[in-house]
């Protein structure tokens, strides 16, 4: 069987894209519906318990909360598509600006975490694969088991205990802001990124190992060895490139998840990130913020899944294109 022609590939992309759009519509509907039934009246929360019924009704009308479900939904989606931002009830500023400022924390945090993860996982995975079933391999596997079992927020707390409380090398939390103190900001992200990264390194190291083992069984590796290439060249030039494909896939998926999944670690380190924004917004019933952020996070996950599907189809012709 030859490589897939252009037409089936295009068809595949179109089908996947249609699925993506459908999923996004379903996701947005679900998000909206869930928040629609969220108990706690935003108007009541804004005005407090002593508000008069008239002022409550006025604010509800002002916020558009008294209109039917689908009108509100259409309004929300329409505005999003036109790039018009809603106002946050609590912060009194456009949600887009709010999200952008928080992404400036969570984005670098997620990237840094993945950097740590790869820096640990790939060498460890290769090392374990090269020493398969020997004590070195068992040691790496034991490390990954412990990593998988450790709650990242506990690791975060332990890091604070060691590096902030005992050694005083880092602040115990908080974020100075990129504009005010770029270096201090980067430093504030190091411990949380390490906590997130090292846990993910456990998963990635196992994956690198098993993927490497699979590749090392391939014929072309045997050929490379038979040609008399040095083991180093075989591993790092011939095997690694192919072994990393599944690793990169999972890395992509994890990055999407991390944008949303950093909520707990942001709470441990008091970082003003996207996760903490939505966490506090849920508590304050700041629905415009919750809606947009939840949709953004879900869209990120769905979109990354879409990209991964495409990348897989492009790389691996065995994936069925229909």
């Amino acid at each position, binding site marked *: 069987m030859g490589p897939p022609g252009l037409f089936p590939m295009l068809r595949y992309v179109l089908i996947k894209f249609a*699925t993506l759009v*459908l*999923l996004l519509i*379903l*996701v947005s509907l*679900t998000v909206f519906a*869930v928040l629609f*039934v*969220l*108990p706690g009246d935003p108007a009541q929360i804004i005005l407090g318990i002593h508000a008069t019924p008239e002022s409550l009704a006025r604010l509800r009308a002002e916020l558009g909360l008294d209109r039917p479900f689908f009108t509100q939904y259409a309004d929300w989606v329409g505005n999003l598509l036109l790039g018009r931002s809603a106002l946050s009830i609590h912060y009194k500023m456009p949600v887009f600006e709010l999200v952008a400022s928080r992404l400036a924390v969570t984005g670098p945090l997620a990237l840094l975490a993945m950097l740590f993860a790869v820096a640990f996982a790939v060498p460890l995975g290769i090392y374990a694969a090269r020493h398969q079933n020997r004590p070195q391999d068992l040691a790496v596997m034991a490390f990954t*088991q*412990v990593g*998988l*079992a*450790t*709650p990242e*927020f*506990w690791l975060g*707390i*332990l890091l*604070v*205990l060691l590096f902030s*409380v005992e050694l005083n090398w880092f602040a*115990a939390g908080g974020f100075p802001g990129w504009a005010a103190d770029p270096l201090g900001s980067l430093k504030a992200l190091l411990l949380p990124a390490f906590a997130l990264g090292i846990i993910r390194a456990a998963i990635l190291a196992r994956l690198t190992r*098993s993927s490497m083992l699979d590749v090392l069984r391939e014929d072309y590796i045997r050929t490379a060895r038979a040609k008399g290439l040095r083991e180093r060249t075989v591993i790092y030039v011939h095997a690694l490139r192919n072994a990393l494909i599944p690793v990169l896939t999972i890395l992509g998926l994890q990055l999407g*998840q991390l*944008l*949303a*999944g950093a*909520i*707990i670690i942001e*709470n*441990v380190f008091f970082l003003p990130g996207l*996760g903490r924004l*939505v*966490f506090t917004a*849920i*508590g304050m019933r700041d629905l415009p913020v*919750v809606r947009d952020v*939840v949709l953004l*996070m*879900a869209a990120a*996950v*769905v979109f990354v*899944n879409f990209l991964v599907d495409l990348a897989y189809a492009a790389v691996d012709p065995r994936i069925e294109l229909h």
Partner: protein
Amino acid sequence: MRRFFQNKNFTAGFVLSAVVVLAAAASLLWTPYDPNRMSALERLEGPSLRHPLGTDQYGRDTLSRILAGAVNSILVGLVTVAIGLLLGVALGLLAAYGGKAADEAIMRLADLLFGFPAVLTAILITSILGPSMVNAMLAIGIFYIPVFARLTRAVARVVWEKEFIAAARASGIGELAIVRRHVLPNILSPLLIQGTIQFAVAILAEAGLSYLGLGTQPPHASWGRMLNEAQTFLDTSPWMAVFPGLAIAWAVLGFNLLGDGLRDVLDPKMARIR
């Protein structure tokens, strides 16, 4: 049984998780102190003979609270996996044998659920239903439905192609009876393996929710909640932050290893691919 204990993962996992289960069972009958008993005179004490793991800000005995917290974690694991199994297996079987429309609908629904970031959605759900242990279990359990549905569908389809199914059909047994008598017993081991691993994931997830204040509510002991409280006293009473975390890691490690061991023994093909 020998076959299981020859596997290192299984043996280690069995021992670790047995300790958790025994601790939980024992705590129902006896703990060194009442886990909720406060004592103003014994606040924030370090580990000692009287309180081997120290006390917290209310003078409650940490060891007793960790033992009581084990009950909590095991309950969460059991209930969430039960939710996932009950609904997931039913939906998975429906997707596998219920025709193309049912299959499409169920699998897209699973895609939809997988699209939502788990932690965030769990937070949303507990905010809607109100923070409590039961609601935390629901929030986690919902995500297990697609996990088990996909697994059931995949395995059930493979089983359906097997010759003994064809034989059963040829002998005139009804479809439902075939599913009950021949399919379910054959998909039991993958479900058991996955269930054990999801059990461990649930313990982690509940700890996270409780850390955020959305899971088990005070004064009930939960490992995640204890870590949250410990963070306030990090500079004066660091041990408060150590032991509950160790308990979580211990339990999760135990059930993970148990799951891996079960897979090694029951499903050697999967174990090799992994």
